[in-house]
């Protein structure tokens, strides 16, 4: 997980973010930035540089909710809707339950589409900008 090293002084160099390196079971990070902390020289004192590599994680998407979470929610709301509507199909709670199921099913579908696109950044870019040079397709 991300950890921040303690540093008392200021000078910080931030490097460009690196692509995803590891896939953790609980959260997915889209980019990891490395920070190098350097102590400035104090007068007369021996120069001492201490470096601490700090990894800062930037969560991707709704980092907490994964595809499985959303699918589980959809399944749960489906069960609830069926149970609520068993008594009375025209009641308001029944409509609300099906509405919630519909909202979650739509969100699950969007999450699936997002996941498909996010796997290859070029695909995602080209889906919306097919006319750019990188995305041109030639068929003979």
């Amino acid at each position, binding site marked *: 997980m991300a950890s921040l090293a303690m540093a008392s002084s200021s000078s910080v160099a931030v490097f460009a973010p690196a692509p995803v390196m590891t896939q953790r079971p609980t959260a997915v990070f889209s980019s990891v930035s490395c920070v190098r902390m350097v102590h400035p020289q104090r007068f007369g004192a021996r120069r001492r540089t201490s470096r601490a590599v700090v990894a800062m994680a930037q969560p991707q998407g709704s980092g907490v909710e994964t595809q499985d979470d959303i699918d589980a929610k959809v399944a749960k709301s489906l069960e609830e809707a069926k149970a609520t509507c068993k008594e009375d199909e025209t009641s308001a709670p029944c409509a*609300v339950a099906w509405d919630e199921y*519909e*909202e979650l*099913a739509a969100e699950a579908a969007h999450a699936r589409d997002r996941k498909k696109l996010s796997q290859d950044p070029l695909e995602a870019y080209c889906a919306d900008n097919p006319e750019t040079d990188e995305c041109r397709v030639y068929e003979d």
Partner: protein
Amino acid sequence: MACTSAAAAATSSSSSLSQLQLQSHFHGQQSGLASSGTHAESLRTLTMRVNGHCCSSGGRGGGFGLGRRRAFVVTCKVAPVKKTVVIGLAADSGCGKSTFMRRLTSIFGGAATPPRGGNPDSNTLISDTTTVICLDDYHSLDRYGRKEKAVTALDPRANNFDLMYEQVKALKEGKSVEKPIYNHVSGLLDPPETILPPKILVIEGLHPMYDERVRSLLDFSIYLDISDDVKFAWKIQRDMAERGHSLESIKASIRARKPDFDAYIDPQKQYADAVIQVLPTQLIPDDNEGKVLRVRMVMKEGVKYFEPVYLFDEGSTINWIPCGRKLTCSYPGIKFFYGPDTYYGNEVSVLEMDGQFDKLDELIYVESHLSNISTRFYGEITQQMLKHGDFPGSNNGTGLFQTIAGLKIRNVYERILADGPSVLNRAKI
């Protein structure tokens, strides 16, 4: 560039004037009023305020009807966009990620992405010219609140129309707003995000035309009307691949939402400037796959800046099958209808397409016979359809009419801007 052409227009004008109004359509920029100095001067300074990028240019010109040589110095200042055009889109699919939105933002140029660095579950899409706001963000009750009060999201009681009106009005006037975020995943209302006023604001959701005050702010409005059979077929395609869903549950969910839908969402059709209806095809008897579609675009007459698309002759009734000697189509072919009609008491023109495009030739053939399509060049519709060939509906009337609607919106936008700051009220008559 805009400035040099405007300067040329200024210098070539030979009427004596104290004020010049210059028009520029370069990327929808507008130029303000230019006032010249008093008469007996050998040098006149024309100051033009042009929105957008502009280089300063000097011009020399002939007299203003006084027979004397005058030198004109044109200086351009970059001024912020003061005019926001508001478009309303009523649709039942989730916000901002729909195909219609992607086609629309593509017509205006650039890809629309969620705001960078903000809440990852934001529903807002931002591109260079357009910002798309999801009206679900104005829910007054979150998912748990709605369950408690037993109201669906379709019910106006679950939405804060006062806030919606206030914020859309502020954006239209050029002020930023802090808009709440409705998180569809958690079902809760998240802390607000800042929205800067864009050139084009699109509000998409279930109730863009429900509230009268919000309706008065819209410059153009569209209602996407999907019939139940098609809705059912699309939901099956969307959900059946995943485990747990069944035909019955999909049917039950559509049926359960229908009363609220008919009571609150459906009546908005009468206020829309354009309604796109998606129905099952009439070309294939007993078709229930929903792959071939019959799409009708119902366009209101008399809307300012909006001329309905027509076939062959405006105001007559035309039935047209383009397939024949010049064009060969594969089964089931293509069939067009155009004619005047009344819709909820309004005079409308209806353009309808039934069938599917199979090849490029069909698309360009059809485009060449449509009129009032507001394209910038011949073949623009075909180009847009091909550009997004992988989007659903790219081979039938849904893609075609969504593209045409997008071009019409662009046309409305350009004409509102061209009218300049004198037009402060909404575009509708």
